[in-house]
């Protein structure tokens, strides 16, 4: 069964149609990449999957594990297993990373009817997940994303993903603002989370990220539609030709 089934999805923001009929199926265990030029609707797709207000589904459907996703609000979707790694992670002043992680994890556990983790078990779990991502205790004590470098922000995002163990992870431009070393660390973190039960949707402008997170399928998004789908070689092709050809198609 498909984990995610998007059929003829049309989405408007402030009355302006951004996505104009998307069809996309992702099965558990697969990693799909969405590539496309700026303004093609990549981020809109990530927001509509996570249920952000202001992104209106005007036509079509999104089903996640067989459920109609549009019936769930943002936090219900999160608890159901949808995770969005933000392109620009948001600062939460005064709230330590540790506190935020604990609040989020326990909120999700509670929503799923599971027992909350106590402080000791939680701390052990966080440290275990933080280590391979190079996230030291000192960083966990700082307010979330406040004064974090680009690399720290993205590592914190992947740490959240590792901790929350989503069924579907949407990675929005995770490579932006990272130098090559940081990119490798983050990609290794993501790859460690690949497993047969988990699907990923990797949104990126450049193919560079896909050298490290190797996708099962690549889709080209342009003008609000998926204009081409192929294997990982499609990413390399795009690197050579650019998006110009697809822009013309969309126009």
């Amino acid at each position, binding site marked *: 069964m498909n984990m995610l089934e998007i059929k003829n999805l049309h989405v408007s923001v402030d009355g302006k149609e951004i996505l104009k009929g998307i069809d996309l199926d992702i099965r558990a265990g697969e990693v799909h990449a969405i590539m496309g030029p700026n303004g093609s609707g990549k981020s809109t797709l990530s927001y509509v999957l*996570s249920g*952000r*207000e202001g992104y209106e589904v005007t036509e079509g459907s999104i089903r996640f594990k067989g459920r109609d996703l549009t019936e769930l*609000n*943002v*936090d219900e979707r*999160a*608890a159901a297993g949808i*995770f*969005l790694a*933000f392109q620009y*992670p*948001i*600062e*939460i*002043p*005064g*709230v330590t990373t540790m*506190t*935020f992680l*604990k*609040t*989020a*994890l*326990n*909120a*999700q556990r*509670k*929503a799923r009817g599971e027992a*909350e983790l106590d*402080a000791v078990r939680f701390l052990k779990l966080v440290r275990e997940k933080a280590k391979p991502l190079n996230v030291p205790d000192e960083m966990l004590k700082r*307010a979330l994303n406040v004064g974090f470098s680009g690399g720290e922000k993205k590592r914190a995002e992947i740490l*959240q993903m590792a901790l*929350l163990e989503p069924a579907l992870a949407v990675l929005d431009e995770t490579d932006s603002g990272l130098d090559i070393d940081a990119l490798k660390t983050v990609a290794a973190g993501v790859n460690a989370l690949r497993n047969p039960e988990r699907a990923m949707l990797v949104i990126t402008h450049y193919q560079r990220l896909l050298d490290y997170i190797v996708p099962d399928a690549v889709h080209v998004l342009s003008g609000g539609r998926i204009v081409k789908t192929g294997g990982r070689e499609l990413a390399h092709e795009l690197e050579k030709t650019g998006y110009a050809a697809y822009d013309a198609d969309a126009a």
Partner: protein
Amino acid sequence: MAAVRETVKTVGEVEKYKYGFTTDIESDKAPLGLTEETVRFISAKKSEPGWLLEWRLAAFRRWLTMEEPKWAKVSYPPIDFQDAYYYAAPKQSVKLNSLDEVDPKLLETYKKLGIPLTEQKMLAGVAVDAVFDSVSVVTTFKEKLREVGVIFCPMSEAVRDHPELVQKYLGSVVPTSDNFYATLNSAVFSEGSFVYIPEGVRCPMELSTYFRINEKQTGQFERTLIIAEKGSYVSYLEGCTAPQRDENQLHAAVVELVTLDDAEIKYSTVQNWYPGDEDGKGGIYNFVTKRGDCRGANSKISWTQVETGSAITWKYPSCILRGDNSRGEFYSIAISNGRQQVDSGTKMIHLGRNTSSRIVSKGISAGRSSNTYRGLVSVHRKAENVRNFTQCDSLLIGDRCSAHTVPYIETKNPGAVLEHEATTSKISDDQMFYCRQRGIGEEEAVALIVNGFCRDVLQQLPMEFAVEAQKLVGISLEGSVG
């Protein structure tokens, strides 16, 4: 942050104002209204010495000539001072010797309030003086404190047992003529706590008072006096609640703090008086005068307050920095929701040399409330090397509330270094989306973000009260989103 999670749980379990119950206890009241006779009645009830009666009467006569202050950014219908009771005491025929003799209904009330009053809970290490309407019911831990020479007792007891200290310090920080409400308090105050820390003593435990207004139509006028002798230290906490009633109730307290050389007082308040309903009906009018006098050199007074309740808050805990090198601090969280009106802040009066002060104010407005920070930093001509740092942050939730910052800065000494920083922000849609994408529900996300916003101040509270305060933050903002 377990507290935040608990907050949401608590919100689900309790009604809006969980302290809104009343206790059915017979009480002994003064006649309705305020005349010289009322003042004499109160003084007689407490078997006070002649000097104190005269002191009260002088204040009362002064009060008759005064007018209510109108400068604060709050509005309310005129208060009929003759339509209130100025003294109400739970009826107890005999003097109590131990906790076992206290009316079980009273103890039940305190239990509901979560006050650690039972013997068992006393082991938790908090000494409590509980004020119910106008009289102090029981003071725990007295013996242990007495061993180190600390006096912690109801004001009426201090008048009886330590008249020389009371006479020396009462009204020495907030004079009877100070302002309308302080003068009213001087005339009719009926209880409050008295604390005396002898020279060189570090008070071995947190001292704590809980105030509760139970009786209908009663005002509460407590008077607290804390004296820290040379080189001593005390941390004091007061908590306040009141039953949910349709009419407004008046609370006009006076708190006076005195620190002598090298002494320090840390005074924390968690105020959760009934704020009135969503339409602004009922609630406490909180007109309070709190002032500390750093009388000695190198002394320090620190006010920390978490204000979540009251229909109207009019309150400016202040420091007079008289002693050289003395230091004043004010840390405040003021949350307003519904139709609450808050006009609160501080005054730092720098008189001595090398005095310093720090003000950190966090105002959070939600609903249709109005939240004003009003503060004064004043530097005397002879006060050399003064430093002040002020930070006023306002957070708005929704689009029907307001936040105002009114800082007054007066300096007569050109060497003073005064810094003022102010910010106003809203909880952004981005922040809410981010938290909710991680599975945190809407109200919990608000509580989390607001607790983060208040963190600098919450950290100033004693540990056990910080947890309590975090919960309160969440509860008071219930219904502020969506």
